């Protein structure tokens, strides 16, 4: 067996262990771990099945199945990163809206407090 599939197998297993440990320690939320676990399991499946890898190599027109593995691994992780970018953008938008809303509410509460203090003073 080529060295690269072995490395990819070890990498996939390592990734699964790291993600599961992180979820257990609540460093990563379960919903955020799903993308990484699916990516790692897909890679693990491909590295352990030469037939599947050969089929994919033929499908995408790459003669060498090891090169096909690298291409698939790159594509899978790009997809995961893209999904994370989407999440990050959504979170940033929410964060900005919440920050603005909080500041506006605080401004209005302070204005009301000042108005209610005025007659007493």
């Amino acid at each position: 067996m080529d060295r690269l599939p072995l490395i990819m197998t070890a990498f996939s297993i390592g990734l699964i262990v790291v993600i599961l440990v992180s979820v257990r320690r609540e460093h990563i939320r379960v919903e955020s771990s799903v993308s990484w676990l699916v990516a790692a399991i897909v890679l693990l499946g491909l590295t352990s099945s030469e037939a599947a890898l050969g089929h994919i190599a033929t499908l995408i027109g790459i003669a060498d199945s090891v090169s096909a593995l690298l291409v698939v691994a790159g594509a899978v992780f790009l997809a995961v990163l893209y999904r994370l970018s989407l999440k990050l953008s959504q979170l940033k938008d929410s964060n900005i809206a919440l920050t603005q809303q909080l500041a506006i509410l605080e401004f209005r509460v302070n204005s009301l407090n000042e108005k209610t203090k005025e007659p007493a003073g």
Partner: protein
Amino acid sequence: MVLIPALNEEGAIGRVVTEVREVLPGVDVLVVDDCSTDSTRNHAKAAGASVLALPHHLGLGGAVQAGYRLAFELGYDYVVRVDGDGQHDPRDIPRVLEVLKRGDCEMVIGSRFKEEGGEHSGAIRALGIFFFRAVLRPILGKPVHDPTSGFVGVNRTALALFSRSFPLEYPEIEALVVLQRKRFRFVEVPCKMRPRTTGKSSISGFKSLYYIVHVLLGVFVNVLKFEGRRK
């Protein structure tokens, strides 16, 4: 309302607020403090401004939009934004308001290039402005002399739009494209820029390159989003 976004401008903000209040007595002045680490908000309050204090640093666009949102919620019809560093001369604000109140445009830009000797910007910035003028000309369908100007007045229609959607970083140029997308009109009026006396520009050195790439991408994305563009 006069809106002044500020980040660590304790050396200038008091004077800016005071000057604005002298030129426009009775007009509300709102300083949006973008989570300054100095005493910007205290100086602004002491000078007589209301302060909208952001609990986290949002960047210029986020700060300006927060001010627009508050102004819209409070029912203001016109908002003029000036920078907190004192480079804009508040005596130009009435001219911006006058054009806005005529009602033939939704946004008025105070342009340092509409008047001889009005400009006060470095060589790199001037080059960037020249570049973006050329980029924006075909998109906007008319020339814009000072697309990076932070001296901007908007009426309630534009305020409604910007309170919902406003570019976050380096917003001035993208805001023009957003306006064009909605078929809103803008007019430029001459204004004077004064040299900065305290603090330093947020766009310098390597950030200039990042600024160009970021804004170009923002313009491109906004052009792709065009809905109902004038045929």
